[in-house]
């Protein structure tokens, strides 16, 4: 079941478009914002709300990389693995985080505190290497800097 708040937010997005199904991606993002990820039940709820088939919504949900179809941790680390970040050494940052948290790309820590995922070029190449945690952006990463940053996410 979509919450009243979710319905209200989706309804507002529908207002931007000539028909409801155009708000499909916005709806998926809204549900994910409230629940952390998009479950099969949520896919069905969105389909019903936008008058689409479950399969259509599923097709859209699985296409976009920033829609999570599996639960993620409380904080999601998105480490840029783009070419400029590769040249500037994102791999050593990855190895450091991976060792520190005991997770590889696609995994979540046992305490559910962090999920780490690779992300394509974040458009901050002159300050590489860069990453995002949730909605926050960080750049010119060093091992020391990463340690301090991670401490701020509980």
């Amino acid at each position, binding site marked *: 079941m979509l919450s009243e708040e979710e319905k209200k937010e989706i309804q507002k997005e529908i207002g931007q478009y*000539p028909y409801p199904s155009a708000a499909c991606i*916005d709806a998926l993002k809204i549900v994910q914002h409230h629940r952390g990820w998009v479950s099969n039940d949520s896919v069905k709820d969105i389909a019903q709300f936008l008058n689409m088939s479950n399969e259509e919504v599923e097709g859209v949900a699985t296409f976009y990389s920033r*829609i999570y179809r599996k639960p993620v941790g409380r904080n999601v680390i998105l480490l840029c693995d783009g070419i400029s970040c590769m040249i500037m050494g994102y791999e050593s940052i990855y190895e450091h985080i991976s060792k520190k948290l005991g997770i590889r790309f696609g995994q979540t820590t046992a305490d559910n505190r962090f999920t780490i995922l690779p992300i*394509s070029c974040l*458009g901050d190449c*002159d300050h590489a290497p860069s990453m995002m945690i949730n909605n926050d952006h960080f750049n010119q990463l060093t091992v020391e800097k990463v340690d301090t940053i991670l401490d701020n996410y509980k």
Partner: protein
Amino acid sequence: MERPLTQHIDPKKAPLTLKEYQQAGGYAGVQKALKEMTPAEVTNLVKTSNLLGRGGAGFPTGVKWSLVPTEHDTPKYLVCNADEMEPGTFKDRYLLEGNPHQLIAGMIIAAYAIQAQTAYIFLRWAYKKAEFELRKAIDEAYAAGLLGKNILGTGFNLELNVHSSAGRYICGEETALLNSLEGKRAIPRSKPPFPAISGLFGKPTVVNNVETLCWISHIVENGADWFKSLSLTETGGTKLFGVSGKVKKPGLWELPLGTTIREILEEHAGGMLDGYGFRGLLPGGASTDFLIEEHLDVKMDFGTVAAVGSRMGTGTMIILDDKTCPVAFLHNIEKFFALESCGFCTPCREGLPWVVKILEAIENGNGRMEHLDILKQQTRYMAPGNTFCAHAPGAAEPLQSGLNYFHDDFVSHINGKKCPWKS
């Protein structure tokens, strides 16, 4: 030297508010276009200025607008492509975060020129600061009567919406972007019909890049001749050029079109970091062909870079240094393209993962000489004309030129059965 696009941008400060921007002369172009010019006059002016699209393809903006039918009885749309995701590209972020009002002003005029009453900014989800600044600026513009009904009392209406994306590089392809904006999978459409005839929701639509739209108000204010005078080549205007990689001062600069690669690399980016040698560069993002030492005096412009076998693309260069393995460099890029393929066309869906597997094998010391022939063959399968969009042809560009310029490095991987850059 004039720097129209970045004159009011200071990354250390908040962008100008509407009032501040107006005091600095902003929105004067909107006044002029809406009050003193017909839509056709605006389009003709942009056409005369020869503004070429700054998203990478360099299509003439005025021509794109003039393809939109002039009948008034159908909805028309203007879409700003702010889905910057080309690896190594960070120019639109700078414009969006630094001066959102410049973009809004350009969009009002562009929408007026094509008589669109609804516009969307298709924004990359990761650009959170840009989204915050844009939404704030749009609210200010609505409150001041620069957006909404009866703009400046001229009778022209425009609703401007921001759509924050959900990822995927392919959304930057203009017809894939339109499908995404319609709430669908971002799969490029077969063309024709082109978006100018049948675009968003099946209606006439113009899609322009952020940097392109940021020019419009300036061109209206100062004229086509002024715009042309800004560049060192036939094409008008300045361009945001960027450099990333092992250079002393990676960054972004607004410079005349036609500035040489050498000047950008050596003067603005400060040259290579001590201890690193230059091997080559991708002039305009990951989907452009390599250039090498002999091309450093090439002028950065659409035509001049194309003449030496590459593309200016987004104008943001990625530098390959001598301590980075060219095979690993290409592996990173091709893996990106393989992951980001929408999967619709066979050469792209099947070819790219194959290329990635081979590059991985070579990098790990398991390469064979015949692999090089397969890679070359793949670049031909992925060439323009075999796919709906430019994704696969773009992916083929660094690969085909990399195989050519760094042939000896490929061979040493294969013969030595290991990557020479790995100890």
